[in-house]
């Protein structure tokens, strides 16, 4: 092989790498505006119950709504006053109590299925926003306490009312905090 061919080969490879790098950098700066990082930071402060009490489908959509100014910071009963204070500090706004129209603040809780009463109808499975209920049709269900956020969304679909909410244990709380961190 003569040296000229070697140089051409090197140039082609380097040119391709540089072109791809520039194109990717451009795409990244165009597609991802800076507001996304604000949404991420707000989302990190929310309790991740995905309960929908703020009238948004989950914590992240609510975070996006706060970031765009569409919703106020007082819509999160599961987070309580602590979350509102943290959000107020992040966004430089005045803290305020949680709006009672969206529900009363509650202590952390997890769902618990009374396995004597469960008929295995599987209706609570699609309701769970975090897939914390194990079970299949005609099999008894149970809740993975470490993943349950205590959002209460599994209560209405249950035909035999065999789900109740109990105070959260230390393990499940630790998990939730590790998610939020």
């Amino acid at each position: 092989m003569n040296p000229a061919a070697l140089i051409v080969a090197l140039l082609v490879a380097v040119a391709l790498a540089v072109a791809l790098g520039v194109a990717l950098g451009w795409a990244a700066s165009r597609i991802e505006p800076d507001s996304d990082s604000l949404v991420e930071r707000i989302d990190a402060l929310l309790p991740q119950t995905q309960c929908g009490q703020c009238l948004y489908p989950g914590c992240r959509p609510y975070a996006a709504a706060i970031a765009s100014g569409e919703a106020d910071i007082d819509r999160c009963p599961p987070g309580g006053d602590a979350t509102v204070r943290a959000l107020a500090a992040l966004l430089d706004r005045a803290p305020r109590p949680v709006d009672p129209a969206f529900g009363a603040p509650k202590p952390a809780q997890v769902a618990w299925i009374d396995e004597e009463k469960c008929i295995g109808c599987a209706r609570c499975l699609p309701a769970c926003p975090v897939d914390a209920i194990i079970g299949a049709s005609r099999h008894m269900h149970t809740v993975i306490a470490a993943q349950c956020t205590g959002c209460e969304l599994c209560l209405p679909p249950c035909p035999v009312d065999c789900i109740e909410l109990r105070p959260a244990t230390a393990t499940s709380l630790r998990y939730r905090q590790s998610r939020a961190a």
Partner: protein
Amino acid sequence: MTELLLLALGASLVNNFVLSNFLGLCPFIGVSRRFEAAAGMALATLFVLTIASGLSFALWQWVLVPLHLEYLRTLVFILLIAGVVQFTEIMVRATSPLLHQLLGIFLPLITTNCAVLGVALLNVDRQHGLLESLVFGASAGAGFGLALLLFTALRERLDTADVPEAFRGAPVALVTAGLMALAFMGFAGLGAR
């Protein structure tokens, strides 16, 4: 037109990249636990395969061949595929953060999905034109997605089935994949050339 249809049929069903060429087995086993993730993976791979086969053809035809650098094709194609995958990751992260979380490490791993490089190299070897390359890439992606989605649905069923202890997890998944490959052999001869 018939030619292109046969090409698409061949790449997606008869010579399915996963089940008869055994390319792309890593995501096939790795991302087949949950249906949502599998559907996202299938779409992302379809996108990457189509774009990468078009771009690699252009690069081959208008850069490598005129400069007599045919021997560089593996290196150059891998570089190109890595770039397209990175672009896909940026797109997915911006449009659907949840899907990005579900796919996790398997999204960047499309780079090492040998089906993608396989399609690019086969396009060159079989001297496909631009349109043929695009059709070949898209139908290979569709075939990969079809096999992945079918396999995921089977595995979700297997999760609640009473499998003998020695077969739980990976063994029964591999047996299932083997049976699926047997079933796909039924397409042999369909539109044969």
